């Protein structure tokens, strides 16, 4: 394992120390070492909280910032934060207008958020949730509530964060974030496995010369293992999973987000995007905005995810709103 680590058991705490040192203009630590908040949260807005396991940089703390999230609970690598951390993130985000907790559909996160909300309620704090489930490959359409949240979460945070910044009420923020994720579909292709620092060897396998279509952010198996293909073929495969599911059709306006899984050279993400763009535009769908880069990773996994969100007037305004965080800065 060729990695930059001290004691693997402390990697999350050490990472957080470095993170708050570097980004002190954007974020601040809190009394809970596993909760990071915005350096300055504008008074009177609805709080936007999130949280999840570590190893997905910029997610989750990298999306704390102006017009994005206000606080995040931080878990161990690929492990849900504690309920206590979610609760403290809610408190850190809260400005008296309630808190929208926007997170991904994983059983640990679901349990911990549920418990944290119970506890928050006891303390008189209102928290509502949106659970991202954009990963088309993780369950059939008729079981969409079982689908995992993946890189579509970035667009959910963008929309929800913008709505809150614009003065939306808790219900409006929740509605905007819910709409964002309802309008969003994703799929990933994994090319290499990743290694949890404390484990020291990959805990799943992707045979060289093959690729796993529909892989999850923790290496969850996808829908198909097939021989490694060209960028053009991968793009086709991804587009063919994502577009029909919503379905996105001619005349739609969309946002496209292509994220690397960590170790794929960024140059190759642009090659992939070039192919994806040709396919989507070729279907008469208009790409209003594209994000290409490492937006939601899985340690040092190789591969990429494609996320497409259908815009309406509201979502377009929200996505176009400037924002400023470690993970996404937009004028």
């Amino acid at each position, binding site marked *: 394992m060729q990695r930059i680590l001290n004691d693997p058991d402390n990697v999350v705490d050490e990472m957080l120390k470095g993170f708050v040192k570097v980004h002190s203009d954007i974020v601040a630590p809190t009394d809970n070492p596993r909760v990071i908040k915005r350096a300055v949260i504008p008074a009177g807005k609805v709080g936007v909280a999130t949280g999840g396991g570590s190893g997905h940089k910029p997610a989750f703390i990298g999306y704390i910032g102006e017009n994005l999230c206000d606080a995040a609970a931080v878990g161990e690598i690929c492990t849900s934060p504690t309920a206590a951390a979610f609760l403290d993130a809610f408190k850190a985000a809260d400005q008296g207008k309630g808190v929208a907790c926007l997170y991904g559909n994983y059983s640990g996160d679901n*349990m911990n958020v549920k418990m944290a909300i119970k506890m928050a309620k006891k303390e008189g704090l209102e928290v509502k949730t949106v659970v991202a489930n954009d990963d088309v490959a993780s369950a059939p359409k008729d079981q969409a509530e079982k689908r995992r949240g993946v890189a579509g979460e970035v667009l959910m945070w963008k929309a929800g964060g913008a709505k809150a910044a614009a003065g939306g009420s808790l219900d409006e923020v929740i509605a905007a974030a819910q709409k964002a994720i309802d309008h969003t579909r994703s799929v990933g292709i994994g090319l290499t496995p990743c290694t949890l620092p404390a484990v020291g060897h990959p805990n799943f396998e992707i045979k060289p010369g093959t690729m796993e279509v529909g892989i999850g952010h923790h290496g969850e198996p996808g829908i198909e293992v097939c021989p490694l293909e060209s960028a053009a073929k991968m793009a086709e495969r991804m587009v063919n999973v994502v577009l029909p599911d919503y379905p996105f059709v001619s005349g739609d306006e969309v946002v496209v987000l292509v994220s690397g899984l960590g170790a794929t050279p960024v140059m190759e993400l642009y090659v992939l995007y070039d192919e994806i763009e040709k396919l989507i535009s070729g279907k008469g769908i208009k790409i209003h905005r594209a994000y290409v880069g490492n937006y939601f990773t899985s340690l040092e996994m190789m591969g990429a995810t494609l996320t497409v969100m259908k815009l309406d007037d509201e979502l377009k305004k929200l996505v176009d709103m400037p924002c400023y965080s470690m993970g996404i800065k937009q004028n």
Partner: protein
Amino acid sequence: MFYNKDGKTVLLRIVKAVQDNKDYLSEVDGLIGDGDHGMNMNKGFTLFADSIAGKDVSFTKGLDELGNLLFSKIGGSMGPIYGTVFMQMAETGEGYDAIGTLELAAMLRSGLLALYDIVEARPGDKTLVDTLAPACDAMDKDAEEKMNLVAALERMKTAAASGWESTKDMEARFGRSSRLGERSRGVYDAGATSCKIILKAMADGILEVAR
């Protein structure tokens, strides 16, 4: 029965069982999960051992502390799952001075019910519920039959073990392994395994201090 105030050795026995099985649990989890179950459990239970070291804690006080620690320091699935079970057991039992078959049955049952509150998994879904539920059922039955604790604990262990055994042929429907569908058959569930180990250690610990 045993005295609640004598329960610390029971808890330490549970801790030791988890620590001793750290690698085994990760290995089981590695087959169809992400291979960290032993690490997660060991971390939480070791934290607990440190926190009660040198302190005089009762069985229910300790369970509450353990549950709280898992809950506030471990996260993942194990934090809320075992945290809920242990904290609920403590809440149910905190008034008991002496704990017999009836009391322990009530504590375990309430722990399971509290768990059902937060997870959808039920027996047959290849989770730790498959170990815990039959253990509860056995205890309830023995409580109804007014069986003494020593005998009841032996039967509880057997029920837990055969519940655990049953997970081998199941298909996982919750948690990480559920993504594998059919491919999840043929190996034990990690949580069911740790639950069996914990229940056995608890029973053996109680047997030591039972009167």
